[in-house]
């Protein structure tokens, strides 16, 4: 009995490991080749797995793309939770956002570049993540405003101003950065500029 339950636990662990390998491999390929141009067969081949294993974990290609976006979302959620719980202010929320973007930068840049071409379900998932970022920015701004350090901003425009700025640099990262990360090189400038816009 004990042997059987240990075997079941090992199988579960292996399943998680395989799933994580697939998600990591997909993220790397999406970043390199683009999301639209990457097939599930490419992902399987890149880590020498059979194509069938991909379908076992992700019955549709969109599920794999969303699994990668969810990974990004979980990191973002953890960073925002930390900033919120410690009442760190708008600047810290912007930095938290940029930290996660830098971590996922090659994939995320592809994602926002290709967003209008992606299936509705994938695009909707990304836009729901944007909704979460918008909420965090707005709540942080409201706290700053109550302390007299920021002016009033309509929530959609607050978010769209920030994300429009960041996405422009990300989509054109090849001309805004000399190295691998436009966020690392330009992030502080973007934060300073945005903070100057919200000043009372």
């Amino acid at each position, binding site marked *: 009995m004990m042997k059987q339950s240990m075997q079941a636990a090992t199988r579960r662990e292996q399943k998680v490991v395989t799933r*994580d390998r697939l*998600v*990591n491999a997909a993220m790397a390929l999406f970043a390199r080749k683009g999301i639209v141009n990457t097939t599930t067969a490419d992902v399987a081949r890149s880590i020498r797995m059979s194509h069938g294993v991909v379908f076992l974990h992700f019955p549709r290609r969109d599920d794999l793309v969303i699994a990668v976006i969810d*990974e990004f*979302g*979980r*990191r973002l*959620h*953890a960073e925002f*939770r930390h900033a919120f719980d410690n009442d760190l202010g708008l600047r810290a929320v912007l930095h938290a956002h940029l930290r996660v973007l830098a971590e996922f930068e090659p994939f995320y840049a592809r994602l926002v570049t290709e967003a209008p071409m992606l299936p*509705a*379900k994938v*695009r*909707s*998932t990304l*836009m*729901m993540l*944007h*909704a979460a970022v*918008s*909420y965090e920015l707005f709540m942080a701004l409201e706290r700053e405003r109550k302390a007299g350090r920021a002016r009033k901003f*309509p*929530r*959609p*425009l607050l*978010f*769209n101003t920030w994300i429009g700025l960041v996405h422009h640099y990300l989509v054109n990262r090849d001309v805004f950065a000399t190295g691998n990360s436009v966020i690392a090189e330009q992030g502080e400038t973007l934060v300073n500029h945005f903070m100057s816009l919200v000043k009372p």
Partner: protein
Amino acid sequence: MAEKCPACGSCGMPMEKPEDFALGDVTRPYCRYCTDARGELLPYEQVLETNAGFYVESQGVTRAAAIEMARAMLADKPAWRGRH
């Protein structure tokens, strides 16, 4: 990989803290936004409206686009799977 928390079976929202769950009960499958005061799952149209509202309030997208995105988001969630 980041640690995973349960997601709402209706809208997919990550449920990390007890207050994220219906009635603050971590054994419930749905979030507080998708349920009524008794913890029961709200009708589909109401959940759709709530989710569409998130898109409109957060980014100012049109109502028609928000409804389409919310529909796409909900389509394969356990509570609504096979609905279409």
